[in-house]
């Protein structure tokens, strides 16, 4: 491990890689903003992977498996080239694609060779890929409670979606059904996480544009259950989930025949507020469903 840090071109010891992914550069810029703000608040130094590309997301996965693997593999290879041993991936979809790709390549030497040939770069395959909860758990852990200045005193529904927890044997993150890591972090930030029924049900993911009706239904069920149980906010860690639950709210409300105005915010936004960052610093104004917490 130490060897790689020494060999790295711009390697600063203790620096953690950061893969924002496309959504965080565009429609979910507030997620990137809040991740970086929270990292800064906890003195976690993040180093963006240079010249990163899109992981291919569902589109590549659906149409061309080899393309999907290769696009993700290029990101892994770039990280390694940069001397990183650990990369934080806030987007659940990217986190999932990168972790699954590394797993598949490590379990099939011939496939690994083929993919390395395609991307024209070598891959070792020993990168530690962390989602945001894992990052906070690893680098902040019990310091979180000390840092909380304005407890996030609201009832929250922690929504994990599919991509953080499945496939469980590969991701090895939290438990498969009824995961707890977000709930624990939110509790530590002063919130009151609720028991509810849709923590890991799918929001409709990539159907946002092509089958908005499906998203309205699937996301609608999620929003309704959270609202029915008195949640004041839905906490997410995935830009796709966020945009489906937030931007598609008109369609959701139409499907539900009910006006639900429960805001959907990123876990880093909630934690950011709890440790004293301003709503603006975590990009709370960027949501479609107004998110104001007095």
């Amino acid at each position: 491990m130490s060897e790689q840090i020494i060999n790295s071109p711009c390697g600063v010891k203790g620096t953690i890689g950061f893969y924002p992914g496309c959504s965080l550069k565009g429609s979910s810029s507030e997620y990137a903003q809040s991740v970086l703000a929270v990292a800064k608040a906890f003195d976690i130094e993040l180093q963006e992977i240079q010249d990163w590309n899109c992981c291919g997301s569902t589109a590549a996965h659906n149409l061309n498996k080899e393309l999907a693997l290769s696009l993700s593999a290029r990101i892994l290879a770039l990280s390694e080239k940069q001397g990183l041993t650990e990369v934080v991936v806030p987007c659940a979809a990217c986190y999932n694609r990168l972790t699954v790709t590394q797993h598949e390549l490590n379990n099939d030497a011939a496939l690994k060779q083929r993919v390395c040939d395609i991307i024209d770069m070598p891959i070792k395959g020993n990168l530690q890929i962390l989602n945001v909860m894992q990052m906070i758990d690893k680098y902040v852990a019990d310091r979180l409670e000390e840092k909380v200045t304005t407890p996030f005193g609201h009832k929250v529904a922690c929504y994990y979606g599919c991509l953080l927890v499945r496939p469980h044997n590969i991701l090895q993150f939290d438990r498969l059904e009824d995961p707890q890591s977000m709930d624990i972090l939110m509790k530590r930030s002063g919130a009151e996480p609720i028991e509810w029924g849709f923590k890991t049900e799918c929001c409709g993911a990539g159907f946002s544009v092509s089958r908005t009706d499906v998203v309205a239904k699937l996301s609608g069920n999620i929003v309704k259950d959270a609202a029915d149980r008195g949640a004041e906010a839905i906490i997410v860690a995935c830009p796709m989930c966020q945009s489906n639950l937030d931007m598609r709210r008109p369609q959701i409300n139409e499907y539900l025949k009910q006006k639900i105005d429960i805001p959907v915010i990123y876990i880093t936004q909630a934690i950011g507020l709890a440790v004293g960052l301003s709503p603006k610093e975590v990009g709370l104004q960027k949501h479609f469903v107004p998110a104001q917490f007095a």
Partner: protein
Amino acid sequence: MSKIGVFICHCGENISATVDCERVAAEAGKMDGVEFATDYKYMCSDPGQTLIKNAIKEKGLTGVVVGACSPRMHEPTFRKACAEAGLNPYLCEMSNLREHCSWVHEKNEQTTEKAIDLVKMLVEKVKKNKPLNAIKVPITKKALVIGGGIAGIQAALDIANAGQQVIMVEKEPSIGGHMSQLSETFPTLDCSQCILTPRMVEVAQHPNITLYTYAELEHLDGFIGNFKATIRLKAKSVDYKLCTGCGACTTKCPNKKIPSEFNEGLGMRTAIYTPFPQAVPNKPVIDRANCTYYQKGKCKVCEKVCPTGAIQYDLPDQFITEDIGAVVIATGFNVLKTDFFPEYGYGKYADVLTGLQFERLASASGPTLGEIRRPSDGKVPKKIVFIACSGSRDPAKGIPYCSKICCMYTAKHAMLYQHKVHDGESYVFYMDIRAGGKNYEEFVRRAIEDDGVNYIRGRVARIYEKDGKYIVKGADTLLGSKPVEIEADMVVLATAGVSNPGAEELAQKMHVSYDAYKFFAEAHPKLKPVETNTAGIFLCGACQAPKDIPETVGMASGAAAKVIGLFSNNELTREPLIAVVNRSAPPVFSTCVGCFMCQTACPYNAIEREEIKGRDGSVIKTVAKVNPGLCQGCGTCVAFCRSKAIDIQGFSNEQMFAEVMALMNE
């Protein structure tokens, strides 16, 4: 000077079709030391045996070789014939001309030559044979039954009623096992306790049965007919000689919030407790881990209220050792708890129950006195879902097998529910209905046709709670896999039957094998279902695999019959083909140098240490000694012995060499 007789059998045409039997006999007649040789169509028949007997008497034979089939088939036959003619039976050997020659070769010259060689080898061997006597081992006519559920009870009563002594060991404070927890039993719906408790009382009162409750097997030594069992009698903290079972202590115990094991956590018990009203023995024990006095040093309420002064806080665990002749393992099974199922809520939902918990709800002696009520709020559930195969037939969860009893008890549960809640709706999610058994299929049909239970073919993907209802998401695979959602008030999981937590440890204590799921292994899946691979240890009931009451009882009687059969003899006869350490005159005593390599090699713990003492009692030499009761004659020790001091009787190195040399000296 040897006088060997050789008898070649045609085995009808089995041998003579490819082997020239007459020529084999003629060639054998020319062999060194052979006094008489002949052939016959059926040597095992009465005339064939008479032929051998007459030759022994007339020719004064000192050894016999029968060239015929496998010794597994007819060695006892020919040895018996020899013994009847006055020849030591172990001077008779069989040469396998059928399996080893005629069946596996074409008819030609070489086949006959091979047969001649096979006979020649045995002729050379038998010249070195020594007369041997069968080993007699005495039998201790007392059986140990481990486990006091219906399997153990049935086995113990059968053995005791045959006039033999039984020791029963039960780890709980009362016998009765899981059957005592059941409400009513399929397919007749008779009350479980009503048919069981008389049996429990019979065990307690039987003059031939010694009952140790709150006890566990600590250690088992020895071999068939001669085991030594060490039993731990866990401290009950109550002197049973003084206790009258009045119940004053259990009513007054201030610590009343301990989940009752008997009620599967649906009711509470006190720290000093009898598990249930009909317990046998009906006397309490103190659960020290939950007792205020043991944990905090203060309380002693039970001692104050006990009218006979039976409470004794400082009683320690006791160990007793018993000589026994046979063991019956009847330790039963367990069921998975609801926390095993992530998709059904990890056990966090109060009204998602196991089948065993439902039994307690349905039982008149249960926490609701037989009314079906939700543990969460006491309401009567108007819509109930039963999920079959919860954990069973689920390789992903590590349980590929069918638990066998769930289809039937689920039908029973749904039926009992409909009988008790007339306006209720019940649904059973199932994959297949396995109702093989007398009146079983009829029972399931009755649930569906007469009681209106809704059977839906499909498995449930998940359950979540909303507004006090449990949303059950299933599919109806008979409607083109249509997703089905039911808002239930209660869900009962027919959780898989699994082995008891201590099964593996117990199996290792007794040296019996077990399967991948820690169920005890029978010696043969068809022909030896109640035997284990260790002679003298039998098994019955659900400790071997999940099974229902009729099957358990049948198996228990089977195991009992085996024990009774064993005990019908005063001593065991064993083949003397075992290892012996040689002995010679002083000052050598034995070529054994006492390295005890054999002891480490022996898989049967049959090698002991023997001290050879002088007249003054001082130890001159320590040598190995083989326990004839334990030795199985495998020969591992012979291979390990550096000083050639150990040998197998009937298969000595000398005999083996003679056979090989017979071939080499061609």
